């Protein structure tokens, strides 16, 4: 007869190892799909949740397979000819929404992976920095920084001050005429104190065009950009102030909530918001104490007669700031008056680019918030923000 055995298998880790490798591949896929993730509405509104589910192009080895939706199939069960047995979804796969029954939908391609927001943000923001950030004496911003300042006779073993301990042992043994030995009472420990230290203060002036020419898409793109900008700032920096300005023909400051929900209309006077930004900076943020980042997002439409003034105000902002940015939301790749005007502004602190769709937001963030802007972008606003920007 056959042999029945009951061995000890507890050391078999092959399944777990292969599983770990699969997990790693999934995370890699997430990093590769960041552009899609960042534009996902679900992610944008996910404030407060710790994890999100991200659809990742399935990690299967692709095969040449038949098109399920365009072929006939065999099933089993009751029903007359002509009777419907299920809905056909986009890709033709049958089955009830949400639940994947026992083999009802062969090889569904989307794999949902649960990841933490931190994981996504860490991957997204790895390359982003506030450019030209300098240490400034900002009165409002102090951080607690641990510093070893004192030596005591009690403390944590890990913090033994070896030099002082040896010195103490030498001193004691000499005094008593004994050979050198280190005893318990010779031990000296470093201790620390939290000392407040000044931080490099930074302020972002977020300016958005809310005039009538900004359609649904444009406003969505602009807000997505600012949303991810804020997430990145919170992720990287402890204290960055953000001021929110909106404008049509007039400019005014709003709360954060209002900034993300305001619906306005009317004409466009770009200089109005730039002038307001200058006022705020001069009043609240002295240049020697603050790194200043004015960031203007609009659709490029501006009253023709206002262009010269806008250019002059932007130049003034550049003089005061570590970086001044202009992002044009331009879904139709139009050549706009404002982009042409700003293109003539050859100022080292000035950066400009445009986005046509949501997939380019990450490129735009990289363009503004990196130490050096991508070369191709400056002065060529008509180019969409992919390609050269990413590099």
């Amino acid at each position, binding site marked *: *007869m*056959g*042999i*029945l*055995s*009951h*061995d000890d*298998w*507890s050391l*078999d880790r*092959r*399944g*777990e*190892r*292969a*599983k*770990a*490798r*699969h*997990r*790693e591949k999934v995370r890699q896929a997430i990093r590769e799909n960041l552009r899609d993730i960042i534009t996902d509405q679900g992610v944008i509104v996910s404030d407060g949740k710790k994890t999100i589910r991200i659809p990742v192009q399935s*990690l*299967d*080895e*692709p*095969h*040449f*397979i*038949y*098109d399920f*939706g*365009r*072929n*006939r*199939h*065999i*099933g*089993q*069960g*009751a*029903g*007359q*000819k*002509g*009777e*419907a*047995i*299920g*809905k*056909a979804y986009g890709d*033709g796969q*049958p*089955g009830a929404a949400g639940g994947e*029954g*026992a*083999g*009802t*939908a*062969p090889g569904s*391609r989307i794999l949902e992976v649960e990841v933490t927001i931190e994981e996504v943000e860490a991957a997204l923001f790895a390359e982003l920095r506030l450019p030209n950030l300098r240490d400034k004496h900002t009165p409002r911003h102090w951080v607690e920084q641990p510093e070893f300042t004192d030596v005591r006779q009690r403390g944590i073993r890990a913090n033994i001050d070896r030099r002082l301990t040896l010195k103490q042992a030498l001193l004691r043994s000499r005094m008593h005429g004994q050979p050198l030995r280190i005893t318990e009472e010779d031990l000296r420990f470093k201790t620390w104190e939290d000392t407040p230290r000044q931080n490099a203060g930074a302020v972002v002036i977020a300016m958005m065009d809310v005039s009538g020419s900004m359609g649904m898409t444009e406003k969505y793109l602009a807000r997505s950009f600012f949303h991810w900008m804020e997430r990145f700032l919170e992720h990287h920096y402890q204290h960055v102030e953000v001021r929110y300005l909106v404008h049509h023909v007039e400019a005014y400051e709003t709360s954060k909530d209002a900034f993300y929900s305001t619906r306005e209309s009317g004409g466009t006077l770009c200089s109005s918001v730039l002038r307001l930004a200058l006022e705020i900076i001069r009043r609240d943020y002295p240049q020697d104490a603050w790194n200043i980042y004015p960031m203007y997002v609009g659709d490029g439409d501006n009253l023709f007669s206002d262009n010269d003034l806008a250019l002059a105000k932007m130049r003034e902002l550049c003089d005061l700031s570590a970086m001044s940015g202009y992002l044009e939301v331009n879904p139709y790749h139009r050549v706009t008056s404002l982009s042409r005007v700003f293109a003539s502004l050859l100022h080292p602190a000035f950066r400009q680019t445009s986005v046509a769709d949501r997939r380019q937001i990450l490129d735009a963030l990289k363009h503004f918030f990196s130490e050096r802007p991508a070369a191709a972008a400056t002065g060529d606003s008509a180019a969409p923000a992919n390609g050269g920007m990413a590099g």
Partner: protein
Amino acid sequence: MKPGDVARLEQSIEWLERRARELGLDFFDMRYEICPPDVVYTIAGFGMPTRYSHWSFGKHYERQKLEFDLGLSRIYELVVNNDPCYAFLLDTNTVLQNEMIVAHVLAHSDFFKNNARFRHTPRQMVETMAATAERFRRYEERYGMERVEEVLDAALSIQEHIDPSWRSRHTREPSLHAVPSLAALSRGGPLAEKDLLLFVAAYSPVLEDWERDIVATVREEMLYFWPQLETKIMNEGWATYWHTRLMREMDLSEDDAIEFAQLTANVTQPNRFTLNPYNVGYAIWRDIERRSGVEKMFEVRECESDTGFLRNYLNQDIVDECQLYIYDRRGLEWVIVERDYRVIRDLLVQQRTNAGFPTLRVTDADWNRQGGLCLTHAFEGQELDIQSIERTLPRVHRLWGRPVVLRTVLSGREVEFVYDGDKVERRAM
């Protein structure tokens, strides 16, 4: 299984094996291993107890383990075509479940040993795969995991494109070192090579020797698995028939009899969207027994594969009993369109041909005079999935290193997909 159950299982195994032999089953020596779920799901994920490691096996392992943890698990059997034949039993199963599995895998073992399609499968595959795993591990040390994985990813993507009929057409397995040169090959008339893996391993202009070895090994393993893919309905039906018969002869308590009935009902439960091979296979075998007796059953299990099994033995009675139908897309819904056994039989045979995979042939190894590889789909009415073409061609390119082309038919038009290393282009021909 509770303590004390092992003794009962041992007794049952002795009885089951003896009774199975009396009834005519002829199986390999059996090795039953009782293991914890982790191990069973590892083996199920890897497909074999000693296979090399790949992330896709880890994915299957994780999915099955998750289903187990959620109580949704459906693995009732895990049996390896090998001499001796290995069967893995979950230590969390009830003793009755394991008895039923033993009865079930005895019939599989008989099928492996006696069905004609399995005649040329190596019976020491467990050892062979252990050696392969060791070799691949050394490649990983030497060339890096990423590179080994890349080649494996690509080879696994086209693993089903082999030619199992090599074994019947040739007495000797073609060796990588004895293939004719490409030039000699093309002098022999128009190229139409079905064994894509062999072709790539032999003629790829870019692969290194160890990479060729990986491709050739994936092919070897697929040749080993192929008969199981070709006889799924027959083999599961055969095992279900015999486990039912053997268990009914066993002296079961009332509780065990109820549990057994429930288990069998689960295994043979029909599905609206696919054919359940346990259910349909079992019904066909019982129909053969009714009409022609048990003798005939043994003859059929020796000679046929799924296509012949369905073509010769599916009839209206079975279609009615199993409530088989064809469904098709009508607008936004799937609709039952056919109940006639002849139409169902013909579609089933078509779907089971080439083990259910599209047939591709290498028709040009110097496409566009760029050394490109051209694959032609033998179109027989079933269209290919476009996204799958676009995602798989780059994998072929990884192995061939020159442009790769797939020709097929979409909406009645001949089209070709070309991947040149950068992007997939689609052209009408």
